[in-house]
């Protein structure tokens, strides 16, 4: 038991850098799961990961069917119109069965657990965005230095 307590994770900082549905969910599930275990969690959204916290985009993310060998689908088939939407709706249906919420609702839930959500300043500047483009649960726009400051004593997980 003593060993167990010593090695317990107290805090995680999760970076979400991709904007596909399959790129965003693992980080969200890990952040939410951390809070469920009483572990402090911060999520840093960077590059295309910002789509997950954009008002206009959060609930429109799609599964990538091209360049993804695990889809077991030839690239040319994955390119056909509607394939990505089809794969996305299949995945959403399966996730709903497991009670995994849509992205917008998940962000709201994770924020309600007490986790902190931040957008990456470099990406915000690059895409000419402002805080108004983001869901109200976003706690702010921070640079990479501030991210490391906030991650003191945390395990950093890049997704």
């Amino acid at each position, binding site marked *: 038991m003593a060993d167990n307590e010593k090695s317990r994770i107290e805090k995680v900082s999760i970076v979400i850098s991709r904007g596909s549905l399959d790129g965003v969910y693992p980080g969200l*599930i890990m952040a*939410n*799961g951390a*809070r*469920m*275990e*009483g572990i402090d969690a911060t999520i840093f959204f960077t590059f295309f990961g910002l789509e997950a916290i954009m008002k206009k985009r959060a609930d429109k993310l799609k599964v990538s069917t091209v360049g993804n060998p695990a889809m077991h689908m030839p690239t040319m088939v994955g390119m056909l119109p509607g394939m990505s939407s089809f794969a996305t709706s299949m995945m959403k249906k399966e996730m709903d069965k*497991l*009670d*995994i*919420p849509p992205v917008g*609702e998940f962000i709201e*839930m994770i924020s*309600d*657990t*007490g986790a902190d959500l931040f957008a990456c300043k470099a990406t915000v500047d690059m895409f000419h965005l402002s805080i108004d483009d983001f869901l109200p649960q976003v706690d702010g726009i921070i640079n990479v230095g501030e991210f490391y400051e906030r991650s003191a004593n945390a395990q950093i997980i890049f997704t």
Partner: protein
Amino acid sequence: MPVKQIAGVQVDLDDEGFMINPDQWTREIAVELAKEEGIDTLTDGHWKIIDFVRKDSKEKGQIPTIRRMKNIGGIATKDLYDLFPQGPAKKSAKIAGYPKPKGCV
């Protein structure tokens, strides 16, 4: 399988202290289990959650997710984390007399 006397009832527990048989549960047991989890007094807010966990688990055959507590049970996620800090899903299940939740969300 450990057996323990809690609030005057012989209760079957797993190795982590979760009840194996929800039918052995009583409200007095809940009060004792809550104390073990560091919750000295069960308020109306706690009971609303415990009652929903018991009712929903009985109907659905599995412990409700946090999302289900919010959408079906009308329990705000913030309240759940305030009332059962440091692991709300596990703690509420434990105090409600159910085994440890197995899902990821």
